[in-house]
């Protein structure tokens, strides 16, 4: 199973949702000090362009 990301907005709450390799779900805040958010940004950069849904193998 691969890690997948989605950008989610529910009401006033906006966050990155990551589906993990074991099927668990993570909510990643858009905080530069959060290492998971940094990894998300790195994945976006590796994929060249921001997109609503991205996949990290």
């Amino acid at each position, binding site marked *: 199973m691969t890690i997948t990301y989605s950008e989610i907005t529910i009401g006033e709450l906006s966050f990155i949702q990551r589906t993990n*390799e074991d099927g668990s*779900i993570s909510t990643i805040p858009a905080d530069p000090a959060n290492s998971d958010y940094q990894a998300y940004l790195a994945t976006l950069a590796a994929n060249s362009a921001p997109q609503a849904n991205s996949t990290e193998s």
Partner: protein
Amino acid sequence: MSRAQLTSTVEQNTGGAVAPFVAGKNKIINGDFGIWQRGTSFSLTGSNIYTADRWFVNYDGSGATRTVSQQTFTPGSAPVAGYESAYFFRLATTVAGSGQTYADITQRIEDVRTFAGQTVTVSFWAKADSAISVYAGFGQNFGSGGSSTVYPSGTTFTLSTSWTRYTTQIAVPSVTGKTIGTGSFIELDFAYPKNATFTLDLWGVQVEAGSVATPFTTASGTFQGELALCQRYYYQINTPTNLPFTFQGNATMFASVPLPVTMRTAPTGTTNINSFTTSGSPSATQIYLNAYYVGNLSGTYSSATVYSTLPYNVGNIQLYSWSGYTTGLPYLIGSGSSVYVAWSAEL
């Protein structure tokens, strides 16, 4: 002369506490591998897998089979006479795999300013099933938006098959002229053999200022202190029982959970409450969320969000797409096994 008298005399002569007994001298948290919030056995897939608290295993390549497990010392068998630790860390690679260019056991220490410009002493106890080589080194990461990572030179050890303490001194570069970004850290890396099978045991990891390896202590010196240090970076609730949810309207069940320690930064929330299933032949009013049992409710459920808000000492759980409930009323949700909710602010 008693130890208390000796300590007092030395303190008077040196103007401070005696180094071997100072809580906080060891910048490694959970250096005795006493805390395992995430579990006690891990079959490693992916990368950057956290195992014992604060410790993660990182590697590339493919085809390897690795496990990390908590091992229990037989009373009286701990490597330091008179220091009866409970557990140690074991990494076992049973299938070598191929294509590995790096393979590390790592702990990150908050703030790249830590030990900057100083000589530090790294010490640890280890043993292996054969005479394998392990490299101990540092990295200075200047955080998001900061200068490039610096890797001071480390030391390679050939491990014995019996518990042995290994020590080395590392000159940590100054941060003068560097740009320090957000979330900076230094990291201690143990580089273990790549593309090989082995069993490596580790305990009593210490990183301290100066050129002498003093007797091992944990970072805090206490059980509760060490747990609190770990919980600044990670907190997990296993099989939560009767979490008090409230139906907020807008199809949302909401619960707030006090976090025991204010977290380092906005944490990532994770849960395996991610689907809605029934079990057995439930009546129309019995609903299960994976192993979660929701008593006397009915409705639909699609997803969960776990997060925290400033100052990151309260964890929030929201379950979406519910219907048929009364806004403002509380609903207790019980728990089965293998369910967890966690908040992570790891570096």
